[in-house]
């Protein structure tokens, strides 16, 4: 039977504030345990949470960036459950009236096809603390609790079940990751837990409209794990159903070492969170002025920039999507284009040599040793014929390792293309004279020998001869006599 996979993602992204969502404690990463957990975060009696204006502003920015309606009135609710890293016995979240309503984002697939994915809602909530399951705390048998993270502002972004393959799910997660960084609402640091993904996965026979029973895979913290966890889960579900079993709706964890998902061990009954409006917090009312202010400095968004790169510069969708993967990269590319007026050449270099070098060195574009001005300088020298495309790669490598800008590298390494035709004519005449056997073969109709001569000229000139000029002169010389 043919199966169809249905995937929806819930993404928790940490908002880039200074202080917590309901208290004045710092959210700086890496502090000593419990030094950033104040009375409000600890849920001590008699405290009152007060909402952080910046968290609201950042949520509004996200809402506007996905074309969603920002709710003029939203309400905080208590989500009740017991766990040691949740000191109050409830998490303050939003339920019936979230701050951000329905929106959409576009993903670009490997073949350049564009797919629109629905965002159901996004709501503000506080993070829980951290449980450290270390051996030997107080001699063993204990779990350590660090509440520094408790109360950190999160925006939970809930998608529609619009994705059909693990690759689409990853493309969507990357899209949201790109967007939250682009508009400056989160650092998106996955190692530090600032961007965590839960995946809802189900399968159904192809053509069936009703959804199958879904499972939820919790806390995926890398794009690779998202893809592998979903891939495993899809295969597991199909095996279960084809073996005559049924899927149980449950929460599962992905184990990267074994590359499998398994049910969470807690025997807790089906979640019953008993949400109700939090009496400590009044409804949040957002007026037009607040929204206008929140989005006043919103930059051009990645989707519209991608579309512009496509139409204005004639780039393919896929190239354009690579160039708009991050805001700094897109700015770098545009700086090169502005200096050279060569968008296609610029795109090839940025997505090719530059991207490869950044990958190899594992650094971000902002720390690239080759600046946009330097790459533009190199492209100028390709345009005016000073260096061939092949030698330009050498120049790039040299710039990357700190040998200066394109002109100084070309000068210092003597990479200037030979454009003096007299010099080239003499070189070619000598090579032809030195290889009478090959000349004989060529004249006898063995065209392939032409390549031998081109190779000899390139070798002799150390790659600095202009290939087009070499062809012309060779043709002429070999045809004469």
């Amino acid at each position, binding site marked *: 039977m043919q199966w169809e996979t249905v995937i929806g993602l819930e993404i928790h992204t940490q908002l880039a504030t200074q*202080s917590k969502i309901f208290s004045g404690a710092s959210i700086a990463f890496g502090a000593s345990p419990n030094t950033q957990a104040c009375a409000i975060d600890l849920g001590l009696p008699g405290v009152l949470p007060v909402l952080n204006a910046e968290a*609201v502003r950042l949520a509004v920015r996200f809402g506007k960036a996905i074309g969603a309606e920002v709710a003029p009135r939203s309400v905080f609710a208590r989500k009740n459950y017991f766990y040691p890293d949740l000191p109050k016995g409830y998490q303050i979240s939003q339920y019936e009236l979230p701050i951000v309503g329905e929106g959409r984002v576009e993903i670009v697939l490997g073949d350049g096809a564009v797919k629109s994915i629905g965002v159901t809602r996004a709501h503000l909530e506080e993070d829980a603390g951290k449980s450290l399951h270390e051996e030997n705390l*107080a001699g063993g048998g204990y779990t350590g609790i*660090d509440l520094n993270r408790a109360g950190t502002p999160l925006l939970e972004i809930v998608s529609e079940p619009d994705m059909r393959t693990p690759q689409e799910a990853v493309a969507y997660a990357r899209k949201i990751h790109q967007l939250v960084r682009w508009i400056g609402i989160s650092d998106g640091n996955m190692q530090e837990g600032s961007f965590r993904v839960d995946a809802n996965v189900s399968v159904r026979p192809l053509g069936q409209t009703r959804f199958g029973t879904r499972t939820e895979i919790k806390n995926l913290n890398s794009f690779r794990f998202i893809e592998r966890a979903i891939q495993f889960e899809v295969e597991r579900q199909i095996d279960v159903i084809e073996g005559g079993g049924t899927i149980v709706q449950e929460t599962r964890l992905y184990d990267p070492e074994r590359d499998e998902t398994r049910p*969470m*061990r807690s025997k807790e009954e089906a979640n019953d969170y008993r949400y109700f409006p939090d009496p400590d917090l*009044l409804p949040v009312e957002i007026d037009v002025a607040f929204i206008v202010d929140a989005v006043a400095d919103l930059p051009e968004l990645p989707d519209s920039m991608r579309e512009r790169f496509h139409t204005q510069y004639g780039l393919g969708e896929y190239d354009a999507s690579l160039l708009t993967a991050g805001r700094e990269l897109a700015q770098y590319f545009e700086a090169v284009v502005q200096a050279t007026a060569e968008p296609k050449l610029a795109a090839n270099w940025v997505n090719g040599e530059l991207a490869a070098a950044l990958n190899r060195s594992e650094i971000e574009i902002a720390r690239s040793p080759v600046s946009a001005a330097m790459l533009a300088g190199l492209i100028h020298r390709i345009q005016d014929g000073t260096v061939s495309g092949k030698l330009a790669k050498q120049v790039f490598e040299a710039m990357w390792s700190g040998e200066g800008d394109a002109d100084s590298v070309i000068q210092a390494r003597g990479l200037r293309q030979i454009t003096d035709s007299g010099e080239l004519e003499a070189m070619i005449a000598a090579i032809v004279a030195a290889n009478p056997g090959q000349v004989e073969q060529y004249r006898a109709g063995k065209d392939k020998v032409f390549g031998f001569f081109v190779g000899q000229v390139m070798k002799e000139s150390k790659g600095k001869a202009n290939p087009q000029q070499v062809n012309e002169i060779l043709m002429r010389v070999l045809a004469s006599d």
Partner: protein
Amino acid sequence: MSLDASDIEKIAHLARLEIALESIARYAADLSNILDLVAQMDAVDTTGVEPMAHPLHMSQRLRPDRVSERNQRELFQAIAPLTEDGLYLVPKVID
């Protein structure tokens, strides 16, 4: 609406409350009465009335994003039953 003993046990468990077996019937009756009162209010025509999220007819005040709290770990942990290396310790939980 009437709650039976198993409802009461479930509610008590969700709230992590221990209740004596002999008081379950009384809780069931009391809570059912409260729900009956709610059902009575349900009969009122509320067309056009915006549901209330809070008894005060005001909106939430926002706080400027500033770090105003200092580290008071020693003070807070003085009342904790068990701590080590700055961590609060609880009986082992596994997920």
